[in-house]
């Protein structure tokens, strides 16, 4: 049913349709509306046969989900940023144990300095953990990906993280088609675990594994994600058949057929990029976009195929591996490596800590990549004056004080507001 609804609430309804049996709730901006929505659905009787547990931290949230999932219940939780880091041990534990937990990540920057706005640094911090990571481009896709996530997780016995841009998607109200229960039930069967804690058939789960077997265990985890490369498109096709619209899959191509320049990006910024591309196409610039939906497993083959004919690839991402560069650009680079005529790769980092990514800036960026390419990582819309001043100030004195506070003071002075003492 079509609704004009806040992204978080639509996601809550979609998750409820998946018949979760245990939901663990701990608040953190910007996912809180999702777990609040689920709590309301449980309390008003819309979501039945569901235990809703208010836990005392994110570490507890995922730990409760681990126990529930190991005991055969369909388990769900949500977090972001600092909360994800707080449950980090449990994140690796869940994937190591092969538990099909679904978790929403309301993408938010990681501090210090503390920042509540959107970027992808939280998702990047767990990209090696073995969790599948799917990025939603729109709120409609966020709804649809959660439904697909439970199916993928349970078929694979691996947890799945659905990444949804904080605020930009979670707090936006838009037109969303929320599916009906019957269609979801036809798509998503009840959870049938590969192994389960049951007094009728006792097993021990979670034993120590030594040097003699650990490598094999990790190989099989990696192999599972390879299998997922086939499963994800298959379940996306089935979704399209049953629900009547495309969502998910490994990646999507937009106007790439004859493109000289192809942009690669993830999440909600792809919408803005598409508008930019249409405008540039009107100026006869042959440019297209590849939207990556499945970041883990990373779709190397599909990506290589979609980029093979391009001359320039511009990766726009909302995160940076400090000391190395953009993680997405790095992964894209590895996909291009063995091409006979690999395109030039340009790495741009944008939107960190919630800085808006505008069409105007993207126009300039995409043109610059071809005409005046840069070396290494380019920070979109970087305030060079502020950065330059700070570097200069640090050079003058060893005890130069805190970076963030000094920058804020500079910005305050520049904007004419009284600077804090």
């Amino acid at each position: 049913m079509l609704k004009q609804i806040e992204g978080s609430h639509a996601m809550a309804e979609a998750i409820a349709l998946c018949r979760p049996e245990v939901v663990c709730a701990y608040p953190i901006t910007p996912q809180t509306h999702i777990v609040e929505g689920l709590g309301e659905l449980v309390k008003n009787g819309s979501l039945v046969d569901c235990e809703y547990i208010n836990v005392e931290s994110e570490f507890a949230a995922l730990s409760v989900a681990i126990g529930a999932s190991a005991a055969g219940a369909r388990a769900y939780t949500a977090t972001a940023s600092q909360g994800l880091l707080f449950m980090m041990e449990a994140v690796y534990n869940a994937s190591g144990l092969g538990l099909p937990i679904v978790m929403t990540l309301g993408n938010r920057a990681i501090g210090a300095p503390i920042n509540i706005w959107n970027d992808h640094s939280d998702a990047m911090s767990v990209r090696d953990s073995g969790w599948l990571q799917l990025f939603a481009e729109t709120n409609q896709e966020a709804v649809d990906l959660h439904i697909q996530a439970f199916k993928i997780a349970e078929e694979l016995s691996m947890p799945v993280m659905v990444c949804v841009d904080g605020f930009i998607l979670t707090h936006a109200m838009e037109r969303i088609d929320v599916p009906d229960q019957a269609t979801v039930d036809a798509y998503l069967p009840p959870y049938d675990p590969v192994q389960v804690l049951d007094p009728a058939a006792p097993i021990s789960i979670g034993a120590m594994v030594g040097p003699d077997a650990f490598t094999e265990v990790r190989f099989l985890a990696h192999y599972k994600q390879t299998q997922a490369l086939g499963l994800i498109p298959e379940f996306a096709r089935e979704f399209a058949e049953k629900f009547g619209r495309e969502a998910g899959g490994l990646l999507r191509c937009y106007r790439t057929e004859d493109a000289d320049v192809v942009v690669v990006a993830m999440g909600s910024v792809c919408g803005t990029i598409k508008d930019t591309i249409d405008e540039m196409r009107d100026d006869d610039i042959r440019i297209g976009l590849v939207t990556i939906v499945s970041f883990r497993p990373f779709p190397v083959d599909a990506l290589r195929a979609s980029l093979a004919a391009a001359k320039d690839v511009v990766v726009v991402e909302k995160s940076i591996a400090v000391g190395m560069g953009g993680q997405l650009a790095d992964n894209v680079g590895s996909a291009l490596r063995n091409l006979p005529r690999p395109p030039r790769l340009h790495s741009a980092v944008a939107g960190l800590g919630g800085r808006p990514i505008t069409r105007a800036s993207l126009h300039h960026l995409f043109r610059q990549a071809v005409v005046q390419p840069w070396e290494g990582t380019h920070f979109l819309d970087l305030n060079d004056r502020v950065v330059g001043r700070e570097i200069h100030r640090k050079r003058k004195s060893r005890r130069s004080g805190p970076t963030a506070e000094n920058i804020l003071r500079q910005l305050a002075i520049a904007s004419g507001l009284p600077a804090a003492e």
Partner: protein
Amino acid sequence: MFQVRIHGRGGQGVVTGAEMLSIAAFFEGRHAQAFPSFGSERTGAPVVAFCRIADQEIRLREPILDPDCLIVQDATLFKVIDVFAGLRGDGYLLVNTNKTFAELHIGEAANRLPKRHAVIVPATEFALKHVGRPVPNAALLGAFAALTQFVHIDSVKRAIEEAFPGKIGAANIAAATEAYAFVQTQQLAATAA
């Protein structure tokens, strides 16, 4: 695509206003995207909310930098932030106040817009009268419908009812209706002039 930017202060229902506008557009079968300028919301602090309306899927996610219509819920903001930034030359201006544009020192900005595109409306008064609370958002939507004729007043009423069921909804609808009539009267008078 039509882009509306709403300025106000925390506690004045700026975000709800943008959401209600999006719901009104939805009832007319259109796509609409409403979102706030995200921040730690504190009562009294400047708040901006956005609403885009279009007949096809809205893909754009940047803040509204070049609005077609500005709705200003709190006239004290003119001194604090650049409310007019990016307002299109053929755009609309709707200000909640019982002062004139000249008294607010924004006469020049208002006059730059096409005739009948800039109006003032005492929305807070209407809200106090009908709802008993100084939350002008619903009234402003009624005024918006009259000013731009971009959404129908009936859709606005339905949206208000959707957001505030029961007696509160009815009261807000009354405020919106009076604001609608108020602006309509102004527009007719301006046409006649």
